């Protein structure tokens, strides 16, 4: 059965977000677990369409249902979602698009400020949360995440861990909680050129 699109009026969440959550659960834990999650979240459907919009309330309901179903904290689930998004071969486009942000990991960190605008160029309705990177002395940074979805900082932590590997950098990440309406992730850069990193060619033929 096809998904239910948003009926209009209420705040929308782009299907790409829910579809990613669906793929994360079904790929990692199986379709049966995903169906359990959707039931627990009070949905009467199981398939999200990437290019439709849904009511905003589905997303936190799903995240809570996943945590309950897997008997894990929502924070760790959200970090795993971040990791999944930039490591799963089917989401290679996400990793590549993030790599466009910078030539090295520091460059990449600074490009997170523009992530929302870049994403909007590609999918105008996506509405990713605003991110702000602040540089501090001694190669430390903090990333402020302004999201309506609680725990988004953990998603970004998962993404940044993988991207650090991708660039061959060594960095430590710590979610330091909520400050002035933003979730803050602190980043300590240990080495920019720690390892070889994964190759990235601008001119790959897309397909």
């Amino acid at each position: 059965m096809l998904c239910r699109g948003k009926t209009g009026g209420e705040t929308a969440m782009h299907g790409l977000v829910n579809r990613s959550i669906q793929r994360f659960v079904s790929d990692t834990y199986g379709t049966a677990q995903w169906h359990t999650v959707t039931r627990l979240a009070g949905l009467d459907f199981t398939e999200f369409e990437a290019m439709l919009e849904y009511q905003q309330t589905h997303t936190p309901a799903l995240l809570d249902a996943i945590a309950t179903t897997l008997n894990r904290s929502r924070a760790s689930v959200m970090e795993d979602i971040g990791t999944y998004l930039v490591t799963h071969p089917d989401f290679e486009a996400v990793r590549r698009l993030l790599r466009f942000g910078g030539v090295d990991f520091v460059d990449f960190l600074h490009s997170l400020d523009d992530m929302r605008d870049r994403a909007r160029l590609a999918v105008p309705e996506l509405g990713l949360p605003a991110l702000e990177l602040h540089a501090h002395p001694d190669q430390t940074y903090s990333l402020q995440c302004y999201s309506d979805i609680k725990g988004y900082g953990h998603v970004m932590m998962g993404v940044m861990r993988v991207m650090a590997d991708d660039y061959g950098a060594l960095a430590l990440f710590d979610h330091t909680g909520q400050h002035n309406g933003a979730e803050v992730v602190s980043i300590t850069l240990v080495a920019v050129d720690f390892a070889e990193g994964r190759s990235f060619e601008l001119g790959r033929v897309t397909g």
Partner: protein
Amino acid sequence: MTSTSIESVLDALCPMHLVVSATGHITHAGPTAQKLCAHTDLRTMRFLEVFNVKRPRAVTQFADLASSQDLKLHLELRRPPRTSLKGIIVPMLDSHDAQDGASIINLSFGISIIDGVRDYSLTNADFAATDLAIEMLYLVEAKTAAMEASRRLNIRLQGAKIAAEEQAFTDTLTGLKNRRALDTVLKRLLDSSSFFAVMQIDLDYFKAVNDTLGHAAGDHVLQTVARIMVEETRGNDIVARVGGDEFTIVLPDVRCDDVLRLVAHRIIDRLKAPIPFQGEDCRVSASIGTVWMQSGNAPSLEELLSDADLALYASKHAGRARQTLYSPELRSVANSISPPQGRTRGTR
């Protein structure tokens, strides 16, 4: 400013530039420009040996280019893969050494950026930080991914639409039941061996309306006819459109054939009246063949429809705009004239 520092400034601001002397010799190539000719140092080449000038047209010597009023260049590399390039040429003003009359030519891939980046294995570092090339590549990839997701959604929606249509019981043009709905109803009635009747109705002269007044007029006639049939039947009768201008009415609980005569008479009568459409009168009429099923005789669905077709054929043969009630004698009469052509049952 020494010429060395001018060149390093240019290398940073526009890494795809060339400095060309008045004689047409390349004296300096920006780092990205040099990547266009991996195996040869561009500084040993003349500009026109490396590039074919497509615009301005008919350039045979470099002096023509340097003196051209048109600053915009369309170039093509002479060696494969013959990359197309855009260029802009400006005279080098502040040249106080041996470069009098030199020009700076800045190059860009323009729309061939995707091929260019792939063919010459370029990276972010090959473009100035202000160059939008990377954003362009980003956009192309991002939009390609988004379009692919939309395309897959469209394919799934198309599949769902077809599936829904296949399961549908409604004729979309008239809102009447369709053949699938009709078959379902008839099978149920045949199984319950009750009293009921089936009217096969063909519109006479409908093709002429379509041919002379167009499909819009034809559609209007079909919708009007459908409305009339619904108005002239009882609430529990089922009116279906089963082909282009073919209708079937199922009348449950028919205890005497007077009802059939009455309904058919009213439909035929009302359809005789012209149907106005955009100032034109559309004229059709109805030929009807009816089978009255009485409890006890239980033919198959195919036999039932064949009997109704035969009665319809008799109405057409007798001059149209009338109803014929099926009786077994019709079959022998029909056979003696010509074999009745049953209405084609679509397989859809």
